[in-house]
């Protein structure tokens, strides 16, 4: 017989998310309509990409604060290349190449020069923000039109948005890499103890650089999908909101902020939790200011409950 208590404790994010969804449904039945669920699935894609990149960074015991403003910058890079060439291919190649380079830079700073990731990526956040405003002055925007953007932003396959399917596929791939390859084990090992990982013969610096390159690539993808969905790019986009939602998603999903522990499944449920809150508050026409307060309160309540449960389990275990 499955241990229901244990399931509740360890998978409580699932139950909390479902319970929250039920509450919203009771307030507004429209919440669980097919249209709305489909809308949620599309809204969560950029957050989900950034959360996935952040997942590996945080499990390795680091943080990447540049992911949100980075995705805004990459969206603008795509827009500029589209403006210049009228096509998307070159823009996408540029976004992928530039984001990998930025990630490589972050990784080298953190691993080789031993700078704290918080400082390196905070600096990169400002650089990305500045460059965005430099490329497109405030108040201006570039419109993105054409087949590709429509395809990424609005087209469906068997009832699911392509962008959502891409996100799911990426999470599945990440699941396999995290759980079934050396690299995944090394990320966990480094997050637990860099010194012990090094002693076991792991090339810690190389793994770290890889982690930052992957997270930056995720923010590149997020930029492409974000801009496609909106149909325009501008420097005033709320990149830091994306970043914080991404961090909230993985933390709610059970990733230890100090590193060393977390599951991809948990992160995905944390993403759904954030998606449900964001969507419901819009749907219920909650004012923007209250939106934030509510989100903060719910996150604190969820994490607080989790923490208390975790502690009681520690006491049980003794």
């Amino acid at each position: 017989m499955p241990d229901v208590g244990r399931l509740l404790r360890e998978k409580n994010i699932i139950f909390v998310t479902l319970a929250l969804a039920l509450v919203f449904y009771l307030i507004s039945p429209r919440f669980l309509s097919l249209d709305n669920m489909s809308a949620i699935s599309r809204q969560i894609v950029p957050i989900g990409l950034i959360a996935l990149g952040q997942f590996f960074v945080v499990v390795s015991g680091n943080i990447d604060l540049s992911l949100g403003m980075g995705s805004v910058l990459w969206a603008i890079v795509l827009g500029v290349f589209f403006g210049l060439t009228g096509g998307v291919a070159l823009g996408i190649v540029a976004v992928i190449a530039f984001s990998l380079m930025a990630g490589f830079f972050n990784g080298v700073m953190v691993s080789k020069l031993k700078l704290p990731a918080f400082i390196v990526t905070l600096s990169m956040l400002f650089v990305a923000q500045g460059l965005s405003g430099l490329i497109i002055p405030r108040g201006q925007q570039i419109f993105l039109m054409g087949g590709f953007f429509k395809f990424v932003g609005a087209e469906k396959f068997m009832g699911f948005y392509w962008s959502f399917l891409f996100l799911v596929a990426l999470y599945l791939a990440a699941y396999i890499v995290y759980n079934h390859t050396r690299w995944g084990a090394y990320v966990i090992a480094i997050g637990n103890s860099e010194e012990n990982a090094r002693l076991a013969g792991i090339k810690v610096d190389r793994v770290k650089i890889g982690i930052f390159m992957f997270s930056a690539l995720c923010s590149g993808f997020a930029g492409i999908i974000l801009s496609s969905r909106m149909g325009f790019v501008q420097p005033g986009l709320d990149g830091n909101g994306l970043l914080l939602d991404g961090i909230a998603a993985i933390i709610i999903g059970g990733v230890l902020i100090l590193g060393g522990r977390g599951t991809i499944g948990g992160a995905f449920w944390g993403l759904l939790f954030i998606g449900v809150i964001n969507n419901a508050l819009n749907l219920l026409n909650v004012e923007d200011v209250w939106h934030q307060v509510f989100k903060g309160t719910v996150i604190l309540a969820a994490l607080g409950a989790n923490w208390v449960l975790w502690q009681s389990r520690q006491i049980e275990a003794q």
Partner: protein
Amino acid sequence: MSNRIDMKGITKSFFATKALDNVDFSCHASEVHALVGLNGAGKSTLMKVLGGIYSSDEGTIEVDGAAVTIKTPVDADNAGISMIHQELSLINELTVAGNIFLGRELKRAGTPFLDKREMARRVKAELDRFGLMLDPNMPVRELNSGEKQIVEIIRALMSNSWLIVMDEPTSALSEEDKERLFGFIERMKQEGIAIIYISHHMPEIFGIAERVTVMRDGEIVLSERIAETSEPAVIRSMTGRELAHFEKPHKEIAGEPLLTVDALSKPGSFEDVSFEVRPGEIVVLTGLRGCGAPELAKSVFGLDGDYTGTVSYLGSPLVPGRGPAVAVREGMGLVTENRDKNGILPALSVRDNIALPFLEKALRGGVLSRGHIEAVVDKAIRDTSTKTSSPDQEIRFLSGGNKQKICFSRWLDDDLKLLILLEPTRGIDVHAKADIYRIIEDLAGRGVGVLLLSYEIDEVTMLADRVITMYQGKSIARYNYPEFDKDQMLADMAGARI
């Protein structure tokens, strides 16, 4: 039987001090060779030479009769030598098998994917070979310290190690885990593994070792087959010559007890311990690591309330676990063994570190009195002869001895009545040690009661007015100055029968 490992004429100096002086040490296959000695006798230095952490100034190391060069830990690894340290080097969030294969994982042929099943199977086979019950797929975080140690040893064996060095392996183990470890060691012997076993516990050494070697002051003073020696002989050889005595000043110890500890027990830490500390008296708790003395001292200070029995201070019983704030207000101070972790605030200045416990007393109408703080800080630096360029210097740039002096100086104001010191000279050079002993005696001379924990027998007998020896949480015996019998004390600490 021939030696598998043979260290010959190993000499190693640190600056002017000879840590190892022409040491010969060897180990056969299928042998447990116990290495014994007081702190600073040179055991760890010798093992660090073997493990490639230090390189020796002179001497050779031979494996199966052929000279080898061991300059780095990787060399030692390649030579088949593994060190199992007290602080284990496992990754908590990975499984048993994941840890054992960390860094040399098996992959499914032609894919980048891990072959978890095969790794678990091989680990299981190895565990079975040694008769150990452990699930290879269990996360290491769910194991207790005994099981973690086993994982670490299996990892060493599976990377083809034939010599295992264990440093105080039982210090954190329960009785049950100890039995299992000894069973495991027996099986390893049958498989031809050589084991160097560092320990102070006489019953363990005489239970599992074939040979015992005692080190003192960087030299081998005894090396015998177990059958040809005895516990008292080993204990006696550990102490040997007397050290130059630190002159213990004469003083009167009088008055009502400051601190009365009555029948204090905490399951798993200490059991039914009672003692008193009077003004001006230095009471020293001593034992081996894991004897429960630090836990006891912390409970007395009020950091931990999870005990039975009573602690009375100045005649009235204290509330268990009342926390440091109350203790400090009532003139009780604590200097911890881990000054970098619990003692100092590394980013703050020397001044701020000293002033911290005095801030409440320095309030003048709700405002901190700058002058009062300056006076306290200047006096403290002078009294402890702390070497710092200025009170504004960040404390983390000071040497270990000077940091420790600052930890002390925090408590040197007139309100101090009882000071609890945990390993006050750990990791400190000889000169700073003398300063610290002087500070402690000065305090006692002023009528402050001192409760001190030390693992170094010479320090214990040098400072104490009364010594309480502990073994596995129980207080074994007490000794009053000047009737200190070091051999008997060491025997108490090691659980030996003399």
